[in-house]
């Protein structure tokens, strides 16, 4: 059977696309309220820290951020290709490494909380 790395790339991509669709709009809305100066109570240090201090909260934050990062990396790679940047191997390597480093950094930050 021919071996392919596509499922490894595609599963987090599809999962990330779904996570982005369900979660990202409301996250950006919360950020928008903070940008307007009306910081929602849930984004206060005490509340968000308490959420991130809980094991389940850590898992949710890491899951959303890591899957969104991976999906975005894959999509930006395709976007670069569609805009005529054909150095695909270089772009893919840089973006996937960035997504992996970002996910590991997020895990480390959450572990410290």
């Amino acid at each position: 059977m021919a071996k392919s790395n596509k499922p490894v790339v595609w599963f987090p991509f599809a999962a990330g696309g779904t996570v982005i669709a369900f979660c990202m709009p409301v996250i950006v809305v919360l950020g928008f309220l903070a940008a307007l100066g009306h910081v929602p109570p849930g984004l206060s240090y005490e509340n968000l820290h308490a959420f991130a201090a809980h094991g389940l909260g850590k898992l949710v934050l890491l899951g959303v951020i890591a899957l969104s990062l991976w999906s975005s990396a894959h999509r930006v790679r395709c976007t670069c290709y569609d805009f005529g940047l054909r150095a695909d191997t270089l772009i893919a390597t840089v973006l996937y490494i960035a997504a992996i480093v970002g996910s590991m950094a997020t895990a480390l930050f959450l572990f410290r909380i």
Partner: protein
Amino acid sequence: MSRRPLVREVPPTTWFFRHPRYMRYMAREVTSLFIGAYCLLLVVAMQRLSAGPVAWQGFLDALRGPGAIIFHLLAMAAAFYHAGTWFNATQKAMPLQIGEEFVNGSYISGAHYLVWAVLSVAVLFFAGVF
């Protein structure tokens, strides 16, 4: 006689101006840039949160201002456009068959929209927005 397959010239950077369908495709592609940037902002947010209350307050203060508002408006447009197109595509990506019949696609997309709305309202509620 040598075989010469037809290779149509496609301009690599301007091809999507040729057809509105390509433009819609590219509009969706561009949303990934804003969502990707927002993901990086979330990584920074986690770093600031782990660094303590002073760092977190500094992050919230840095988030204020006209530049941040414009960025958030663009990111919001991107996030909502991605969500809408994603849920519209679910009926094609995972058609549901019960017995002989396929379930009407609008029910599949509609169910996704419903879950999305409930989830978003729940997050806003627990974040104390209302």
